[in-house]
C-alpha cells in the first residue's frame, strides 16, 4: 500500500470508547478524504468494529495471546507500517496508555497523550493537536510536523465527538502477520475485581459520596437515589480507602469522570477530588457546611442536612415521576 498519510487508525479494547474514537477519527478523515481503520484484537469484536463505522478492519493472521501489552504493541506497529496513517488514535485505558508511547518510541513517531482536539489540514503537512495538562488543570496545543501522529484519548476527551457514520458495504479486511509476536511478560492468572465501579466512566449520573456522609447509616438511601437517576455511586478517596466502601475513587489519584450530572453529597471540594469530577456537565452539591469549597465549584448548591434533604428529594423525584432524560445523549 502506498503511503498516503490520509487515513486514521484506531485501537481501543473498550467498546464504548472505541465508538467515540472512531467518530472522532471519521471527523478528521473527512477533511483529508481518508478512511478509518480499526485494529481488532479479538474475533468477537468484528461486528462491533463494523458497526462503529470502520471502513477497514485490521486483524492478526492467527489468534494471539492478548492479555499482555507486547503483542498489541507489535501488531499496532505492523498496522502502522502497512497502512501509513496520518493519525493513530489509541484509547487511554491502562492498556492503551502503555501501548501508545511504546509504539511511538519504537517507530520514532510523535505522541500526544490525553488528547482533547485534533486539527489536520489536507493542504498542510503539519497537524495541530491539543491535550490536557496537569490532569486537566491546563491545556496545551502543539504543532506536529511528522507524517504520523499517535494520540491517546479518554472517554469524553473531545468537546465534540464526531457523529459516527456507517460506511456503505462491507469493511475492507487486512490481515496482519501474527508470527513471531512473543511476549517477555507471561500471564499466569487473573481474578476479577469487585464490580463496584465497573461502568463509572460511562455513567450519565454519578452520586459522589464524601466524608459528610455518615459511616454507620449504610448505603441504601444513595443506592435508591442512584437507581432512580440511572446513576452509579462513587466516592472521594477517604471514603473509599478508610471506610473500604469502594475499590476505587474519584480524583487525582483515582478515576476521572465526565457525566452529565455529578451529585456530590457531603463532599468538601478539595482540589485533589475536584480534578476527578470537573469535566461533569453539571455539578450539584449537598452539604450542611455553607463555607465548604464545593459551593464555589458547583452549578447548584444545597445548604442543608444531607439526610433530611435526600429523603425529601427522593420523595419529590418519585412524586413527580422524574427520570434521566435519555433522549439527549
Amino acid at each position: 500500500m502506498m503511503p498516503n498519510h490520509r487515513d486514521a487508525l484506531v485501537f481501543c479494547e473498550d467498546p464504548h470508547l472505541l465508538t467515540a474514537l472512531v467518530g472522532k477519527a471519521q471527523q478528521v478523515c473527512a477533511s483529508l478524504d481518508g478512511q478509518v481503520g480499526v485494529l481488532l484484537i479479538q474475533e468477537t469484536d468484528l461486528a462491533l468494529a463494523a458497526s462503529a463505522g470502520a471502513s477497514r478492519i485490521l486483524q492478526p493472521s492467527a489468534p494471539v495471546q492478548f492479555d499482555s501489552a507486547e503483542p498489541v504493541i507489535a501488531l499496532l506497529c505492523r498496522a502502522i507500517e502497512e497502512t501509513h496513517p496520518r493519525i493513530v488514535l489509541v484509547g487511554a485505558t491502562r492498556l492503551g496508555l502503555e501501548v501508545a508511547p511504546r509504539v511511538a518510541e519504537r517507530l520514532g513517531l510523535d505522541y500526544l497523550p490525553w488528547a482533547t482536539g485534533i486539527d489536520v489540514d489536507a493542504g498542510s503537512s503539519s497537524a495541530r493537536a491539543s491535550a490536557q495538562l496537569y490532569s486537566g488543570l491546563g491545556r496545551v496545543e502543539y504543532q506536529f510536523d511528522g507524517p504520523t501522529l499517535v494520540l491517546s484519548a479518554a472517554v469524553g476527551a473531545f468537546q465534540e465527538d464526531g457523529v459516527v457514520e456507517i460506511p456503505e458495504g462491507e469493511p475492507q479486511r487486512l490481515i496482519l502477520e501474527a508470527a513471531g509476536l512473543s511476549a517477555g511478560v507471561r500471564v499466569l492468572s487473573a481474578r476479577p475485581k469487585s464490580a463496584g465501579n465497573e461502568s463509572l466512566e460511562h455513567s450519565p449520573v454519578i452520586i459522589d459520596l464524601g466524608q459528610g456522609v455518615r459511616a454507620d447509616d449504610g448505603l441504601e438511601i444513595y443506592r435508591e437515589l442512584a437507581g432512580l437517576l440511572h446513576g452509579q455511586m462513587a466516592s472521594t478517596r477517604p471514603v473509599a480507602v478508610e471506610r473500604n466502601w469502594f475499590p476505587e475513587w474519584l480524583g487525582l489519584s483515582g478515576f476521572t469522570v465526565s457525566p452529565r450530572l455529578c451529585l456530590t453529597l457531603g463532599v468538601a471540594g478539595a482540589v485533589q477530588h475536584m480534578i476527578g469530577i470537573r469535566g461533569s456537565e453539571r455539578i450539584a452539591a449537598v452539604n450542611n457546611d455553607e463555607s465548604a469549597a464545593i459551593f464555589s465549584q458547583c452549578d447548584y448548591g444545597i445548604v442543608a442536612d444531607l439526610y433530611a434533604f435526600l429523603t425529601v428529594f427522593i420523595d419529590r423525584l418519585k412524586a413527580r415521576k422524574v427520570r434521566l432524560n435519555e433522549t439527549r445523549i
Partner: protein
Amino acid sequence: MRILALIKNSLDITEIKVDPNSGELRLAGVPERIGAIDKNVVEAAVRLKETYGGSACGISFGPAEARDNFKDVLAMGLDEIVLIEDSTKGEASAGLTVRALKAAVRALGAFDLILCGFASDDGYTYQTGPRLAERLGLPLVSYARAIEASEGKVRVEQDLEDCIQLVAAPLPCIISIAEEAFPPRRTTLMDAIKAKKKPISIWRREDHLELEEAFRNAPASAPLLEKTGVIVRRKQQIFKSSDLCATADQLIDCLISDGILTEENA
C-alpha cells in the same frame, strides 16, 4: 538484587491556580517535591531490597536544585541518588528524558530491576516507563500492586481496569507501580540523620559521553503553540431555604431545564 528507582521532582499540582481573568496558569511559586507516586516507587524498591538483599539506587532527571528534595527518599532507605541535570530548564521532550535515563542506567552497570511510577504526579502522562522499556529493550510490567522475586524472575500482581492479573517476567525488567500501592513508610529522626551521609551525585551532560549523545540526538519537543489554564465556569446557584420540599423542586426544575432530567407528568 540491584534495584534502580526512577524518581521525579514534580510540581505540586494542587497548588497550581488559574488566573480567572486571563486564563493563565500560575506556575510561579508552585512547590516542587518528590511526588506521592514516586514515594510509592521508593517504598517498593526499599521493601524489595529488605526482602532480597542488595541495593536500591534512585535516578532522577531534573534541575540541580532537586537535590534538596531527596532527603525523605534517602531516609526511607534508598542507598544513593544519581541526579541527571536537565540543562533544558524543564523543556525536555519525553524522548530526551528516556535517552538521558538510558545513558545513566547503562553507566551504572548491571542491575536486576528498574522501578518507576505508572505516571508522574504532575505530567501524569505515563510515558517514561513504556518508552524506557523500548529504549532498553526490556520487558515492562505496568501497574504493579505486589512484587515477588525468585530464580531470575519476578511475579507481579498487575492492577488492570477489571481484574488483578498475575504475570511473570524475566529479570532484568522494568516494573511500574500502580497508584496508591506500596504506601511510604514513616521515617525516624535516626533515618534522617543516616540519610545525610548518603551520596547524591549530579551528572552533567558534559561529564558523560553517553549523556552528551543522549542530549544531542534526542528528538526535539514539538513546537508549543499555546498553554493555558482551563477555567470551568459553574453557575454557583446556592439554595439554603429551610423549606426542603421547595428546594428539592427547585433543583429538579433546574436539572429539567438543563435537559438532564425529564418529568413524566409534564
